[in-house]
């Protein structure tokens, strides 16, 4: 099975994250940039399918030059190769334009299965799998906590508010996964060394047949007008329980009219 995993480089969610003051895009310059955590689960799932059914796993990333670090990190887990869509004109692209670019790249890769994280930790927009599926005219099985492959038939358990849905489709398809689906492997030393030699193909907008005017700020379908940092919350009263902690807690709740 030919599997493509979408990997996004994002600012580390464990540290302070900012938008740039000049153009309101994500400030990647001052951030520690890492693989979107949910994508590691997508990579793991792809590797498990390859191990069970054979095939090839390709990483697909759209992002600036520095996303190369995340691509090498992804490859160190075990995928065979990577494709990096990189073009200065992409800076400032909206989700709709991003899906156009990724769909164009996927169109060249002939994937049976596209796997991605259910959302990225920076935007948390959760729209990419369905946008790509809509453009490619393939099934989207999203929010999977379990994926079963039986020949060309895919079955997922999709987490919902009330429980889960069992959803099936035939390949080709896009599957997005939550972090409940598996436990991603750590790259081995051998894997890290091997990743340095794995092929990484770069594609420009020209290679994909997408015009620069369709992406970036010019082609954006939405705009951030301004942003402000919310002042950090400050702690209020803190008491130490000396036998009356529970009562005092309820007294506070009563003054706030919760009891």
């Amino acid at each position: 099975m030919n599997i493509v995993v979408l990997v996004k480089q994002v600012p580390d969610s464990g540290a302070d994250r900012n938008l740039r003051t000049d153009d309101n895009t994500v400030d990647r310059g001052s951030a520690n940039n890492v693989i979107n955590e949910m994508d590691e689960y997508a990579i793991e799932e792809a590797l498990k399918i390859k191990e069970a059914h054979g095939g090839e796993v390709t990483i697909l990333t759209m992002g600036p030059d520095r996303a190369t670090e995340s691509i090498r990190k992804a490859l160190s887990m075990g995928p065979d190769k990577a494709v990096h869509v990189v073009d200065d004109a992409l800076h400032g692209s909206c989700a709709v334009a991003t899906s156009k670019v990724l769909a164009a790249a996927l169109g060249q890769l002939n994937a049976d299965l596209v796997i991605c994280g259910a959302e990225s930790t920076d935007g948390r927009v959760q729209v990419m799998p369905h946008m790509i599926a809509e453009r490619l005219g393939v099934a989207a099985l999203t929010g999977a906590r379990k994926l079963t492959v039986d020949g060309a038939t895919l079955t997922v358990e999709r987490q919902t508010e009330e429980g889960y849905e069992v959803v099936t489709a035939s390949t080709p398809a896009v599957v997005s996964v939550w972090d409940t689906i598996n436990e991603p492997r750590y790259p081995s030393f051998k894997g890290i060394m091997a990743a340095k030699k794995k092929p990484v193909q770069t594609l420009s907008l020209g290679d994909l047949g997408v015009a620069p005017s369709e992406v970036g700020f010019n082609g954006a379908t939405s705009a951030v007008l301004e942003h402000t940092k919310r002042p950090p919350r400050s702690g209020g009263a803190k008491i130490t329980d000396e036998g009356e902690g529970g009562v005092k807690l309820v007294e506070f709740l009563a003054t706030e009219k919760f009891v």
Partner: protein
Amino acid sequence: MSEVLVVVEATREFGVKKVTLEMLTLARELGTPSAVVLGGAGAAEALSAKLSEYGAQKIYAAESEEIDGYLVAPKATVLAELVTRVQPAAVLLASAQEGKEIAARLAVKLDNGILTDVVGLAADGTATQVAFAGSTIVKSKVTKGLPLVTVRPNSVNPTPAPATPAVEQLTVSVTDTDKLAKVVDRVAEQKGSRPELTEAGVVVSGGRGVGNADNFKLVEELADLLGGAVGASRAAVDSGYYPHQFQVGQTGKTVSPQLYVALGISGAIQHRAGMQTSKTIVAVNKDGEAPIFELADFGVVGDLFKVVPQAAEEIRKRK
């Protein structure tokens, strides 16, 4: 005034979800609200009373086994047809998994901008969003097409405005491409009378400090006394104390209730990302240095197994 389409979010068990009432309330500020019900046969009938109560001037009903039996794509196709026909002033959907997914497909079909996790929307289409776990407030706008936004639960105070809407049945004509992802089963888990986590006015969450799955009864008891939902930190979920769908945090649900009670939760960034926009935060933790106290409006440094039962007893006394 122009129509504003509100795509109804509902569950089999509880009917119309609160976020739908919030969207109807918001839509009244922007134009004339029309509710859109996308579901199986008879779906609109069961929901119409509530939709009328909150000001729906019209109800569009698309009811078909094709809508119910396949994932998302048929809904987007029906909605795209409706949007093209009525040219609404805006389209509002719930900022939850399915609402975002329908909106995603609609955006591509119509080549229209999309804004998610919106907490406010002005008449000129300027939306307010919270980014980076609530640390950044963003003002944004759809610049191509109509305002297509998903509204985050607990953003608007829902207020009734009774109306008597006409019901218009929509013809459902979907393509084979819309029927690629077939729903073969729906399994209910964790049924109960508690409010849904992202919509609840009160959330009581437990963390690693709760110690084991059995002790979560204590968290549930306090939640029930306060009429709230139960949440859990990632540490508690990873340790198997509580199911994943109740996880609050960066890789779980984002909640923004009136009251958030954190029990035995240290307050790692992972967790704070999902709850720090709560109006009032209360914490109980035995470690006085735990970062959760930096957020808490009221904190108790102590043993939750002593503090929580005492608090529960005190609430019962006052009731």
